[in-house]
């Protein structure tokens, strides 16, 4: 039984088809990477799963429950959390306050939410910054904050959009380690990632998108050598 099931999802913007008949399943506890060149439709797919976009065709289900057509907040309450590619911290709130907003989706008790938020902030390594305003954080710290905030909603499925994008090289290993730990703790993850080294280090399965379609789905080494994938990234001249 799969946790996430995407079936025949198509999304058009005017004349452009951003997602075309995308189908795949994610089993509980799996960590699946999503790759593809710019404009492949990766982010659109995330927006659809998280309820921000409504597809013209197809269905998204979480544990058999239909998500398509539900508002993003309902989707979150059903167990799907996400981060944003372009980071969106609550700049005027403290780090703890940011994470509490997530925790308050699952508990009505503010004190309880504060305790939970403190634990999660420590888990992502931001405990020294707990009372700092989010606007004072560096990009790497903001990525951790987004992750912490999403985790606080106690998701069954976590969508990560470019965890290592825009972060300086030295902080990447720590972020990768964090993702590994989340996976090890049993969380199901769907990860968009540009950095091939990062993605192959954390996952056993990659889905490659190109021009809105799934062109490959399998283990990293197979996908990386796939003719269609190489063509999509480098052009026909590089395929033998």
């Amino acid at each position, binding site marked *: 039984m799969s946790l996430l099931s995407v079936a025949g999802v198509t999304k058009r913007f005017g004349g452009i088809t951003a997602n075309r008949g995308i189908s795949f399943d994610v089993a509980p506890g799996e960590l699946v990477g999503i790759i593809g060149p710019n404009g492949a439709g990766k982010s659109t797919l995330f927006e659809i799963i998280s309820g921000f976009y409504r597809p013209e065709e197809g269905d998204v289900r979480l544990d058999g429950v239909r998500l398509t057509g539900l508002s993003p907040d309902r989707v979150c309450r059903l167990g799907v959390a996400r981060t944003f590619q372009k980071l969106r911290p609550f700049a005027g*709130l403290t780090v703890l306050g940011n994470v509490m907003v997530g925790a308050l989706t699952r508990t009505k008790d503010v004190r309880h939410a504060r305790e939970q938020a403190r634990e999660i902030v420590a888990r992502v390594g931001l405990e020294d910054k707990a009372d700092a305003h989010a606007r004072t954080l560096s990009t790497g710290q903001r990525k951790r904050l987004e992750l912490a905030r999403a985790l606080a909603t106690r998701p069954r499925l976590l969508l990560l959009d470019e965890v290592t994008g825009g972060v300086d090289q030295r902080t990447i290993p720590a972020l990768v380690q964090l993702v590994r730990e989340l996976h090890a703790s049993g969380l199901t993850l769907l990860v968009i990632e540009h950095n091939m080294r990062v993605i192959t280090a954390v996952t056993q399965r990659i889905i490659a998108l190109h021009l809105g379609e799934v062109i490959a789905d399998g283990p990293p080494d197979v996908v990386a050598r796939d003719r269609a994938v190489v063509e999509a990234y480098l052009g026909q001249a590089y395929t033998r």
Partner: protein
Amino acid sequence: MSAAPAAVFFALAALASFVVRDAFLLDSLILILLWGSAAAAWNVAGGYAGQISLGHSAFFGLGAYGAAVLGTRWDLSAWIGLAVGAVVATAAGLVLGFLSNRLRGPYFVLATIAFSQVLLIVASRLRAFTAGSEGIPVPFRPGFWTLGLADKRVWVWIVLVVAVLAYLLQRYLDVSRRGYQLAAVREDEDAALSLGVAARRLKVAAIAVSAALTAVTGALWAQYVGFVDPFYVFSVDLSVRFALASIIGGLGTALGPFLGAVLVTTVETYLRAQFGGIGAGLVGIYLVVYGTALIVMVRFAPQGLVGWLRRS
């Protein structure tokens, strides 16, 4: 922020009702508390929910007309007029809240201005019902039930109760679950949605509550002043005053609107007394002062008086 400064502020106001005998000072105190409450009501939408409105006079006017029309036409209690005004304003707030889900930033601000101006036109044209542009004199009917109170000290207590309630409402938003969620909506609506916050519903509720409370202050004001003029109660000037007191005092802080109201009301009273005489050429100077004050505050104390006091 601790509640101590607020406790001192409201205790001083209460104390003043026993000590002060001077009618002018009592009048100033009543207006400060009333404008402070109105600014606090505005702050719920503008500060806490981040929905900057320049049309809140719409709700103030609905409250004022509620009390005046029901009192003069059907001889109903001023309190019933106040309640009806608040209910009507809540409905109007829901409409504005709905608009806030369609329009963002400057478009929302423009819509709020238009909203109050539509009500102004309706009130000044519906002669049969509202007495049109002449306005409605609110008759003085002695008694608490009719809010015909000659003793200004009783008025201080009435507006003080409203002010404290407005303050407590804001404190609730400082510390409660809904408050945190509303802050998230203000900071980034999409991010709030992604974390499971029912952003739209929360925003609409905040605007509706803000509208109801503004209407209450409008009704009390009408009873206190004794005259409702559509061109005043529905004016953009008035909306700006609510926003200004709140911004100068400290946007999204519970005590800020009251501190802002102290400053704005005092300055305005002083300037009116100095320059406002018949034939004076500087009648509108308080607007110049407001504008300058706003620029100075935004430049040097963007967190308002509350933020400035907290730092020093």
